[in-house]
């Protein structure tokens, strides 16, 4: 069976988390890293905006400052999310650009790579579905948002999985577009977003979520996941990239 590297749950700030993703992608593109699945958490909480978004348009910066929430721009497109510390589980897949699993086009590759979470959620007892373009839903409510970028000759695919969240905090720090609300005809975050805790109706430990997702990705991607760590080269790249991710030039570039 094909072997992938697995980087187990670590908790870090958003600049480091995004720097590590890009470092792995760059190293993978240079054939200096294997295909990789990574699990990670966020401390402090952070608002992550898509590559093409503007901080000013998406984020209440004063509120973030008051709450001690970082503002981070990622390298992939898509929309802003609040990755709260402890409440959001995140994962990254870095896979070679010529891999047959992603040969069916962009839409199909989202479906395939999101398969790990869907399988993992089913292990937890939840029936989840892929909802194009890039969401995973349970009973029609979004539980996971995902984003990809094609760069360095690889696909970097990352996404969130909500364990628990505070819709009021989300509503305070994210500016939701009027146009978008009208289109979806939904007003409240509670109506369109859900969490593992809410769906299971009980407390769920991070360990339980991690174990289910580990098994889910193994099955969906049909790979053996071997625990590993960042190479010295990747660590070095990540330290350099962290400078970029934490610089105002990058954060406020749009």
């Amino acid at each position, binding site marked *: 069976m094909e072997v992938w590297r697995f980087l187990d749950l670590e908790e870090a700030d958003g600049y480091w988390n995004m720097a590590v993703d890009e470092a792995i992608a760059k190293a993978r593109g240079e054939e200096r890293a294997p295909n990789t699945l990574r699990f990670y958490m966020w401390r402090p909480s952070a608002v992550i905006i898509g590559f*093409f978004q503007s901080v000013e348009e998406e984020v209440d910066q004063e509120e973030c400052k008051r709450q001690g929430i970082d503002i981070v721009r990622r390298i992939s*497109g898509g929309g802003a999310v609040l990755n709260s510390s402890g409440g959001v589980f995140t994962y990254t897949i870095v896979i070679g650009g010529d891999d047959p699993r992603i040969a069916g086009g962009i839409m199909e590759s989202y479906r395939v790579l999101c398969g790990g979470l869907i399988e993992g959620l089913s292990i937890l007892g939840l029936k989840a579905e892929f909802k194009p373009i890039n969401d995973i839903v349970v009973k029609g409510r979004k539980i996971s948002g995902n984003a990809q970028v*094609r760069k360095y000759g690889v696909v970097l695919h990352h996404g969130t999985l909500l364990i628990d969240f505070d819709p009021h905090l989300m509503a305070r720090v994210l500016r939701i577009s009027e146009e978008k609300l009208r289109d979806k005809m939904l007003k409240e975050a509670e109506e369109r977003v859900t969490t593992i805790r809410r769906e299971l109706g009980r407390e769920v430990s991070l360990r339980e979520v991690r174990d289910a997702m580990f098994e889910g990705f193994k099955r969906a991607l049909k790979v053996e996941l071997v625990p590993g760590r960042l190479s010295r080269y990747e660590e070095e790249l990540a330290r350099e990239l962290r400078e970029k991710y934490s610089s105002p030039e990058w954060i406020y570039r749009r």
Partner: protein
Amino acid sequence: MKRVGKAEFKVPGGKLIRARVEVVNGKVKFVRFTGDFFMTPEEDLEELENRLIGIEANPDGAREAVISYFKAKGTSIVGGTPEDFAHVLAMALRSA
């Protein structure tokens, strides 16, 4: 004299696209597209914005410029089309 305009458009079944423009003496001085769409290669958007600087601030002409840029580059866009970007820019110019 500087005029500014902006517009946003939620693509049905797709993503949100916003445009901000500055017009000076009837010419485009600045264009910025933002939103939750996906584009590969991502550098194409900035190149398009730069190429639009200096063109006549005419919504129809600007619309054509956007569409022909994306068609020529073969840019891959998820959550919108070249026509959607052209539409938002034309709206922003009309509001300027």
